[in-house]
């Protein structure tokens, strides 16, 4: 059996593979101590997979905190891992858009599933999960319900700012001017789609396209992307947030 740990900047994910299939996984917060988060996530995934630590032959760590997880046999970047995970679920995939807590990434894959090029946001948090969290707070909307909520909008607000700080100010003034929350949220989703979507276009968008990372669970961002890029995302059969950890486990199985 093999394990992959994705110590993300906000969330740590672990996947345990048995006979090349996902046997168990876990998703926990990384906010405390990234080293501990890695261990805890692994333990939980092992429990969920109904196996023991000794059964795991090789562990690969990925994600922002990959080098702080000391039990890894190898570390690989999440760029390679998201590509590997997505390719495993659907070999037709040529582009992965991964939006996590701190980064948005666009990854190109060749037919064999190898990462062939990528683009990433600069250090600014605009267009990431963290950005949405800040906005959800400002709007007093639950993070999990943002997607559903925005889908009800028929007139998304247009937001000009791409910077988290300015966007927050803009959101606050929109609320003050009486704009509907659902329209503001839909506008925020559009702004993410525009920003990350342009990055994807710059790289040369190729089908099929998978959307991964925690933000992929937000149906509003998904549909904003599909509208902006005029494409439909390829369905994936696993939780989009664990694709990096899945890729790491797959790398472990070939190491």
């Amino acid at each position, binding site marked *: 059996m093999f394990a992959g740990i994705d110590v993300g900047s906000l969330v740590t994910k672990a996947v345990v593979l048995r006979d090349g299939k996902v046997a168990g996984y876990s998703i926990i917060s990384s906010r405390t101590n990234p080293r501990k988060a890695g261990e805890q996530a692994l333990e939980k995934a092992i429990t969920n997979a109904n196996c023991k630590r000794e059964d795991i032959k090789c562990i690969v760590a990925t994600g*922002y905190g990959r080098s702080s997880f000391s039990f890894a046999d190898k570390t690989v970047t999440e*760029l390679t891992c998201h590509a590997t995970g997505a390719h495993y679920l659907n070999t037709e995939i040529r582009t992965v858009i991964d939006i996590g807590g701190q980064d948005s990434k666009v990854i190109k894959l060749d037919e064999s599933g190898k990462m062939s090029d990528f683009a990433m946001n600069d*250090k600014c948090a605009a267009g990431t999960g963290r950005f949405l969290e800040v906005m959800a707070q400002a709007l007093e909307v639950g993070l999990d319900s943002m997607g559903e909520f925005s889908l009800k909008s028929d007139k998304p607000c247009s937001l000009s700012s791409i910077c988290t700080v300015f966007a927050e100010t803009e959101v606050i003034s929109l609320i003050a001017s009486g704009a509907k929350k659902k329209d503001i949220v839909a506008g925020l989703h559009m702004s993410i789609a525009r920003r990350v979507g342009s990055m994807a276009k710059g790289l040369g968008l190729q089908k099929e396209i998978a959307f991964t990372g925690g933000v992929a669970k937000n149906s509003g961002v998904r549909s904003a992307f599909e509208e902006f890029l005029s494409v439909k995302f390829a369905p994936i059969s696993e939780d989009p947030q664990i694709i990096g950890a899945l890729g790491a486990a797959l790398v472990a199985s070939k190491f």
Partner: protein
Amino acid sequence: MEGEREMWKAQGIDLKRNDEFLEAAGKIYGDVYMKQPNRPKGMGFFDFVMSEVHSIRPKEMIDHREKGGKVVGTFCVYVPDEIIFAANGIGVGLCCGSDFSFIDAEDILPTNLCPLIKSGMGFKKGMLSPYFEACDFIVGETTCDGKKKVWEIFDNYIPTYIMEVPQKKDPKQRELWLKEVELFKEKMEKESGVTITPEVLGEKIKLINARRKALERLYELRKSSPLPISGKDALLVSQIAFYDDPVRFTSKTNELCDELEERVKNGEGVVEPTAPRILVSGCPMVIPNWKLHHIVETSGAIVACEETCTGTRYFDTPIVDETPTDIDGQLKAIADRYLNIKCSCFTPNDDRIDQIIKFARDYRADGVIYYTLQFCLTYNVEYEKVKRALNKEGIPLLRIETDYSEEDTGQLKTRIEGFLERIS
């Protein structure tokens, strides 16, 4: 150095901040430089220069002034050192590579300005640099918009002379530039009271050419595999070229090259020959900015060349023609040489793109990292052209835009390691 504190005090340096800066820089230096494996012995001199960075060379400059010479600060590789030295002057590239001094500049400059400019302004305004305080005046240039306008602010703190660097390289602009070089000669003569003779100018042309040749020799050796020297060490040599005494620098660099030649002969390298080789291309990296090189070289790759002002752009365009024996001919040779530098402030600047491709081949690069400082418009915009050209040639390319802070180290590491995974 003995008596350094008295020297700083007399210069008006902010002693407390200076101590803080030296301590921080010393620590970074230890982490970045002293832990490298298989360093050439010849780097010892450069380590020493760094350990005395605010002491020995500034002292030499102060002594030079006491003997009636001039010290002239510069910020750009377009300012001809030959003329400064021919007027019994010392030319020195000034401090602008650290965010330590941002706080001193932030109250008078916009936040969205290139870190190099902000840092330089801060070092002067905050009285943090013995180099600035040793200068009689500084020479700015009309290259990028940020610098062009900041000279006017600089002039409130230190006399600032400006050379007009044109933006195109047509005959008309070449003429203008020649005129600027002639005016600069007059300025130096007036400031120093020295009449620049063809004999002395000829001598200084040879002096600065010798410095270029030493650097060229160093870079030539970096074309071999395995690499006999790390990118970090080579970068440091390039950076020190801007302020050390040219005679001493040239001789120490040549000594280093002798050692590296032996290494190459014996097939001895600082890393395995399989380590991916990177060409870095873009904005200058001023001491103590070793950020990108450090990340690359702690991720299993090695930098083989810098197509930057603290790299090839400093020496690579043909050396100044040494044949003219009259002032007019010499000034024309100087003007010609400098205008061949390929900075993105020029339009068009296609020669630079051809050169990046050539360097990628010559230095056997497995990939190119396009390095830009945040808010450096010209290099950032030029990326698009470089990308098209390199894509066509099938040369892998990664773009990194960053500043002097450490905040984004983790994200940069992911990108760089991802790039290495991609090209492996």
